[in-house]
């Protein structure tokens, strides 16, 4: 064997044409047949193809599709995307955003709630449901402040409380009718909002949260000790209410429930208006830690934040007025630390920066807190456990489960694939079926075969042959290697950059994208083109052996 290798020599077919310059003969390795049957897959192959879970609607084809919009916006009632099914080419439609449908369903259920409520639980349920409506509305405004504006204020409930106290006071002492209370709340909310907003321009995150918490506590202590605000009675009561006393007890409960739902819907509309339009978009450009970038883009995020903050505060004032009209007054519990804590739990559980998160979180926490009064303090522990679980295991609250699950599934998928991949990169069925151009599947198979064979051709002799003469006629082994290298796709294909003609060259790699210049590969300077050619060859050999 040793002898045979030593004796194998390649003779240049150009010998005789150019006696002086060319390499006539070089030592080479014994010839190997490049034609091999492809090997079997080394991993088990499974039947693949996952049927889709979601219904796809057929496209309209020749029929006219009359689309309706939410007047007066340009938003279509449902965000529907048309396209071709890559597997069947069928023209089909997908509802890209099903949330409007879920909201409708949820509200239909809430509207129909009275049909399903047993008489025995009516009192508890309606009270809880009304609280859900009011707290949901408050939390939506809070979500605007924390989520959209990115201001970590914990003084939300104190704004509501201040407005509730203020409007209740007006109602009791000046005889304001119930329908005026929310509107009295608005300026109170605005003033309070202004007071809280001022430090927000100077303080960041944690310190601001502490400050607002302190403010909250200050309010609580104040109303607890203030005679004017009913320190004796444990609250300020006696305001006018929209619920007429003449109504039956059940009627009163029902009216309170539906009124709270209306309040919730109004808060949702506000959330959508601010978050989904210009202000919200501006603020999404300027998330925390990236303010400088937004500013450099010409976005005045501070102004937008203050605007959102003030608008939300006015809305909170409105809700405070409604609160007073609903409960016929206000209680110091609005300022208590556990209200703030529960409110925070509501936001966290549902998921930040989304309306549905605020509403669902409120639903769960209020449901547990007010619906299961029988459990006593245990229910608080339960809420704590849920909150802890959400914080520990979920990235974006309950509504973040879907993207989080998908990300996890994709991660697992790629992990599985990497354990199952065939060495050398041949495609497995699960990857192949997702490849648009099926030609690529075969190219990869061929490429793998090719590389497996070419690796056996890389020897010191071949490298030495290339070093002696990078261009020109080569032995079969070297020629095969070079031909393979030259046909590499453009992306990351090696090229040479001339720094100074005939003096200095450097290896770069092509981008493979129109208009994108090649990128540097190494700093080494080659003194001649032949040296640079050989440098490229050595890199390519190395890449081949490593692949």
């Amino acid at each position, binding site marked *: 064997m040793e002898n045979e290798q030593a004796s194998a020599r390649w003779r240049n077919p150009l010998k005789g044409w150019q006696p002086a310059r060319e390499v006539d003969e070089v030592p080479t390795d014994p010839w190997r047949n490049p034609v091999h049957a492809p090997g079997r897959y080394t991993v088990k192959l499974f039947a693949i193809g996952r049927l889709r879970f979601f219904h796809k609607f057929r496209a309209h084809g020749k029929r006219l599709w009359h689309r309706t919009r939410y007047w007066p916006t340009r938003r279509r009632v449902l965000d529907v995307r048309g396209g071709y099914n890559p597997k069947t080419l069928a023209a089909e439609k997908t509802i890209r955003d099903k949330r409007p449908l879920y909201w409708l369903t949820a509200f239909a259920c809430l509207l129909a709630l009275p049909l399903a409520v047993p008489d025995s639980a009516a009192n508890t349920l309606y009270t809880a449901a009304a609280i859900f409506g009011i707290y949901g509305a408050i939390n939506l405004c809070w979500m605007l402040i924390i989520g959209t504006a990115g201001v970590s204020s914990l003084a939300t409930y104190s704004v509501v409380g201040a407005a509730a106290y203020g409007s209740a006071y007006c109602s009791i002492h000046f005889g304001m009718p119930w329908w005026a209370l929310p509107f009295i709340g608005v300026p109170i909310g605005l003033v309070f909002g202004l007071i809280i907003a001022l430090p927000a321009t100077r303080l960041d995150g944690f310190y601001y949260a502490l400050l607002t918490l302190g403010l909250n506590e200050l309010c609580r202590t104040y109303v607890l000790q203030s005679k004017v605000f009913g320190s004796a009675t444990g609250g300020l009561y006696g305001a006018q209410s929209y619920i007429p006393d003449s109504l039956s007890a059940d009627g009163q409960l029902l009216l309170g429930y539906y009124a709270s739902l209306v309040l919730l819907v109004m808060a949702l509309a506000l959330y959508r208006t601010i978050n989904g339009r210009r202000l919200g978009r501006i603020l999404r450009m300027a998330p925390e830690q990236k303010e400088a970038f937004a500013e450099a883009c010409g976005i005045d995020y501070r102004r937008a934040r203050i605007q959102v903050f003030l608008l939300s505060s006015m809305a909170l004032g409105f809700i405070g007025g409604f609160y007073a009209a609903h409960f016929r007054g206000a209680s110091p519990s609005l300022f208590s630390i556990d209200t703030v804590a529960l409110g925070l739990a509501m936001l966290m559980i549902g998921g930040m920066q989304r309306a549905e998160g605020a509403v669902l979180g409120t639903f769960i926490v209020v449901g547990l807190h007010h619906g299961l009064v029988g459990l006593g303090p245990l229910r608080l522990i339960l809420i704590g456990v849920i909150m802890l679980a959400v914080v520990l295991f979920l990235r974006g609250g309950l509504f973040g489960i879907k993207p989080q699950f998908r990300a996890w599934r994709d991660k697992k998928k790629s992990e599985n694939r990497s354990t199952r991949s065939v060495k050398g990169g041949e495609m497995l069925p699960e990857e192949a079926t997702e490849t648009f151009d099926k030609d690529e599947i075969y190219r990869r198979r061929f490429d793998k075969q090719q590389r497996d064979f070419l690796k056996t051709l890389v020897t010191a002799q071949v490298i030495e042959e290339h070093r002696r003469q990078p261009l020109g006629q080569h032995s079969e082994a070297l020629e095969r290697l070079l031909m393979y290298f030259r046909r590499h796709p453009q992306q990351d294909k*090696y090229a040479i950059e*001339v720094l100074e003609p005939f003096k200095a060259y450097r290896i770069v790699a092509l981008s493979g994208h129109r208009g994108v*210049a090649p990128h540097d590969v190494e700093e080494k300077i080659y003194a001649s083109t032949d040296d640079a050619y050989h440098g490229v060859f050595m890199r390519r050999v190395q890449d081949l052996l490593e692949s």
Partner: protein
Amino acid sequence: MAQIKLFGYTDKITVKAGDELVFHVSADGTDTAEAQLVRLIHGDQHPDGPGFIEKEIACEVNGPWQVAKQFTQVGSFLTAEDPQGALRLDGSFTLFAFIHPTVPAWGTRQALLGRWDIQRNEGYCLGITQAGFLEFWQGDGKDIDYLKAELPLVANQWYFVAVSFDARNSQATLRQVGVGNRYNSRLGKVAPVEYDSHVRETLRFRARNQDDTPFLIAGARDWHELRGHFVGQTYCGKIDRPGVYQRVLSRDELDAIATGAVPTDDGRVCYWDTTLGYTEHGIGDTVIDIGPHGLHAQGYNRPNRAQTGWNWQGRNDCFRLAPHEYGGVDFHADAVLDCHWQETRRWRIPADLKSGVYALRLRAGPGIGLAEEYIVFFVRAATPRARIAMLMPTASYLAYANEHLSFDAQIVQAMTGQPPILAAVEMEMYKNKEFGLSTYDKYLDGQGVNLSSYRRPVLNMRPKARMSSMGITWQFPADLSIIGWLEAKGYDYEVLTDEDLHRDGAAALAPYKVVLTGTHPEYHSERMLDGLEDYVADGGRLIYTGGNGFYWVVAFRDDEPWCMEVRKLDSGMCAWRARPGEHYLATTGEKGGLWRMRGRPPQKLTGVGFISEGFEHCAPYRRMPDSYHRRADWIMRGVEGEVLGDFGLAHRGAAGIELDRYDLALGTPPHALIVASSGGHTDNYILVTEELLYAYQGLTGTQDHRIRADMVYFTAPNDGAVFATGSIAFGQALPVNNFDNNVSTVLANVVETFAKDGPLPGAAWISREKQFR
């Protein structure tokens, strides 16, 4: 400070004393540049040669120039001048067109037709979204309202698209109907694709139409504070027979148009019949409107005509046979044919400026790399005096102008057998669309580039430039090696260009006794070829100092000599292939492709024609027995031994890169002599495709005897003659050893003998000739 970059071009490429030359210069990072007129002698910096040689010429334009940054409009589109504002559609309207988008979803919005102002959000437009959906949009200056089709457009399919807006109820209806047939589109009937989509919505407001917004087809107006107005949202693909109505067309009416009916004139504002205007001799840039206002649309960057339309039936292959099937106007978002830069300087060529190759050298800052620019032009003699002329193949320079092969062509390393060697200026070119493409590139939509012009900086028509993919000089800088040789030999020569030959025909060459070609005169118009043929037949003497010449059919418009059209098709070594049915030049109406396929192989003119190419190795010639015959032995006078040109600046050989061979079957005159032939070409040399009927193993340099360069000599009528070297690398072998070598000797023998009056030695082959030998 920004990096200093200088780029420029001239309005003409060939001038004579008294002509006025306009320079257009763009500068980055500087507002002055030092100008110096130079005569170019040699351009190849290869250490085996004499290096770069220029001669500074005193001249009034030398000195500091004020220069500024200039901008280039990229993309082709049509503008309809509309002074009366007929297209200010303030009431109900309908827009429609047939379209064939080539890359509907390339991530950029593409406008099809409309009066849209991108910067102000004003007007209306029918276009294609970033994701490839047909969409109608209109704006009132603040807001934009959209109506999108249900299904995305499939690339390379023909569609009829229309939008109508009903001003009474603000309803807009968008329609998209597939009109593919068995021939005109990529997919056929068997692909189960539903193309149609009809969507209606009530829009919120009406468009606000400003007076000055232009109506554009395949673009929309945009604005930039440094640049002013320009056109953005340019489109890739074809548009056929677009129209505008000032009323809502019913579905039946639209269906009728979509099936080929001519639209009625009831409410018609414009109907651009793209099939009108074809003549036997091609078509121009005007698209005719048969509507009441006659708002003919003008092309910018030459939207491609003579392309198949939506109703092409596959039977007729030329617009001359069926103009009504050739309504396709082809647009490309990255087309650049004229930079239209502001004039930087104007200069009248002085009477005493000797004919030659000149450049205006501009330098700023460091004065090297991108801070140095040579704006090349050719000065011909106002009154020819010399006996020798060098015909600079400017048509071929155009073909390769700013080629991107190293970057974009995956096959190029396999073809040239080496990794490319990229210079800074090429990287700069690759990063900027403003420099345009060559006929060796494809537009971003994959269609071949069939037009090229010199009214843009041609960065490889520069001294010192090298062809990155091949590691050698190419075209202009390679031809400077012949210029350098003429200078070194002290011959009295004058320079003229393909443009002069095209314009004046044989008359341009007639004053000269000898004409030398460049190293690679590959592209020829019919008039150029006729001129050369007549010149030789009338007694002229042609030295074809190159390889792969007289190959592609090209055409120029008489009034736009800076722009050349070529269509690559069927057979031949080509970077792309024209689509079926699009094989005739829009410029002249003649068939494109190879001259060989039109009955004029290069062998008929020069005795040799293209046989093979390879780019990593060159070989020497060896004398052939014919060179000892007394008819031709004078060619080898002073040559020792049999081997010629085993040296050269192009891979160390005089025979290589592209090779031409003698072939009686293709019209080499039967009395032609092969005085030398090359041999020993590597397997990187492969037989050209037009020679192939079946491809089989062994069609490479070491195994096929046809792969060689033939040095051929023959006499022509009236004491004319042709000497052909059959190799591109020949010219680059001349400068070796300071122009003193056996290849130089051979060429000098031929030039000196050809330059003499009277019959050539041994031409008549009678005994009387002994007296002068």
